[in-house]
């Protein structure tokens, strides 16, 4: 397993509040990793930094074989480099069809001119059909995404993430608002995805994480508190203190 993403000594503060404090973390490929921590631990800010939404005050974020510094890239360049993100709140383009949503996400050239002259190939159609099948939205490809249920939107967003075919998936609370059956499906899907790529999951639900059966990183006050298997970290006294309070 090689290191795909390495976060080194990253700090960021908002108006004096240190959201991330000398955080160092590395993710291998392929790997499934869960990131947990109490509210305000910096989980979402961590994702913001990796995806380029937030610029840290100091530190480095290195990516891939050639150790590219992600901090120098824009959000879209980071996405094209192979990092996909699923937001906590499902964000799909409600005004457009499910097909259009998936079609935008499918790996293709992203430049304006390439997109302007783009014509769907049979391969593209096959891929979209495949993804729709995977996320259970085959019958709704022609419907507006805004007409989907909350769970279906979650699925659509996961589908778009898969369509991007990223090397690293950052998934923020994927199971929120899902039925138990859907959760199981999601767990399967993430585990399968993690066979070939890196997947980082932020989740509060310990049961969900237990089912993922992966390495767990615990964040607290913007820094890494503990790392290891779920059983290992839940036995850590510091982790217990943080979660239960003293």
């Amino acid at each position, binding site marked *: 397993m090689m290191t795909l993403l390495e976060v080194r000594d990253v700090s960021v503060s908002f108006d004096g509040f240190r959201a991330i404090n000398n955080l160092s973390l590395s993710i291998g490929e392929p790997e499934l990793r869960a990131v947990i921590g109490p509210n305000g631990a910096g989980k979402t800010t961590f994702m913001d930094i990796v995806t380029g939404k937030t610029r840290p005050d100091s530190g480095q974020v290195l990516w891939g074989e050639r150790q590219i510094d992600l901090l120098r890239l824009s959000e879209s*360049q980071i996405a094209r480099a192979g990092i996909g993100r699923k937001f906590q709140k499902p964000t799909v383009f409600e005004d457009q069809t499910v097909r259009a949503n998936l079609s935008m996400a499918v790996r293709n050239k992203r430049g304006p001119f390439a997109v302007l002259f783009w014509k769907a190939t049979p391969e593209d159609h096959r891929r979209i059909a495949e993804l729709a099948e995977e996320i259970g939205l085959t019958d709704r490809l022609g419907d507006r995404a805004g007409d989907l249920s909350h769970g279906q939107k979650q699925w659509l967003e996961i589908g778009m993430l898969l369509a991007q075919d990223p090397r690293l998936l950052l998934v923020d609370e994927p199971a929120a608002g899902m039925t138990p059956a859907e959760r199981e499906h999601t767990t399967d899907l993430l585990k399968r995805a993690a066979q070939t790529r890196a997947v980082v999951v932020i989740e509060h639900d310990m049961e969900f994480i237990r089912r993922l059966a992966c390495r767990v990183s615990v964040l607290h006050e913007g820094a890494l508190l503990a790392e290891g298997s779920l059983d290992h970290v839940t036995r850590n006294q510091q982790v217990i203190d943080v979660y239960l309070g003293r």
Partner: protein
Amino acid sequence: MTLINRPPVAPTAPILAEGMAKVPPRRGFLRENPSLPWFLGLLTIFTLMVSVLSEGLGVGALSTSMVKIIGMTLCLCLIAIAMDVVWGYCGILSLGHFAFFGLGGYAIGMWQMYARTEIVIRDSMAGGVLPPTPAEVSDAVAAQIFGVVGSLDLPLIWSFAHSLPAQLALVVLVPGLLALVFGWLAFRSRVTGVYLSILTQAMTLALALYLFQNDSGLRGNNGLAGLQNIPGLLDVPQAVLSVWFLWASALALGLGYGLFAWVVSGKFGSVIRAIRDNEARVRFLGYNVEGYKLFVFTLTAIVSGIAGALYYPQAGIINPAELAPIASIYLAVWVAIGGRGRLYGAVIGAASVSLLSSWLTGGGAPNIEIGAFRLMWADWWLVLLGVGFVAVTLFFPKGIGGLFDKLVRKQP
């Protein structure tokens, strides 16, 4: 960077087989744009009807000035669909597109004015003993054009004014480059929403103020005049010329409609509408949002410039007041009333509001007597427009075009 195109998520076999079977039928361009054939058909019929009724080529039921107004309205429709693409589809409320329109008009007007003045000067100099040298001709032309702002020299920006192809190129290049530079600056600093609107308004204001100066090289607030005369076609009566311009305007509108229908359909359309709805999310999908915005902004600016280049020869005069920020806001009003996010909506809005406006303010409508009080349309039209516009924004956010949607949906 090596990005291995890795296999999709290992799927379960039967699902894959089923998925492959369900390749949907290919959706044609026209199927995605049902309004296009309708629009082109109606535009053709309308243009032919106006031609038949015109004074120049037909039975004479429509005066030349009316034909010109119709031709100008078609140009306004063209800039309105450009505005619709940049605002209704891409979410950039530009308050500067009328500036591009004006620049297009200035670019063509420079050639018209130069070439026509040159003809006049050559005629008057032909009577002299010595035939004039090229330098004498151009000096005399410069003095004739710029005497009004107290200058005798041809400004540098008029270097190509003698050449129609060059000025035609400038019709496209000047608005295009301005939009490109301004857009690049604005978009790269992630100025969005109302900030961007105000910034575009500031750009328009700066341009208008610049043109108002006498030493701007474009005759200050005198503007360019006599543009209804086309050098080389001075023998053609205005009545005929007006119909030709009507055709040119209709052609440009038809082509523009087709172009934009193509741009906003398909994946590109998807992406720009996605940018309108959630720009950040589009970035995380790997699209360079700034590039798309810049493309749309520049393309629509170029089309606006072309619309202006067709409009002002019919209007006959252009001056900096035409570029004032208020004009661009009216453009937004037309598009909003017509209905954003649908090209025909922009056409309906621009045509109805601008024609209604010229009808009411031009004294076409009878004034209403209410007892001793006399309602003058010319005075009250703007009040009506303002209040009506507020009402449309409040109650019909989809504009007139939204009503079409309801009608279409009701007929299964």
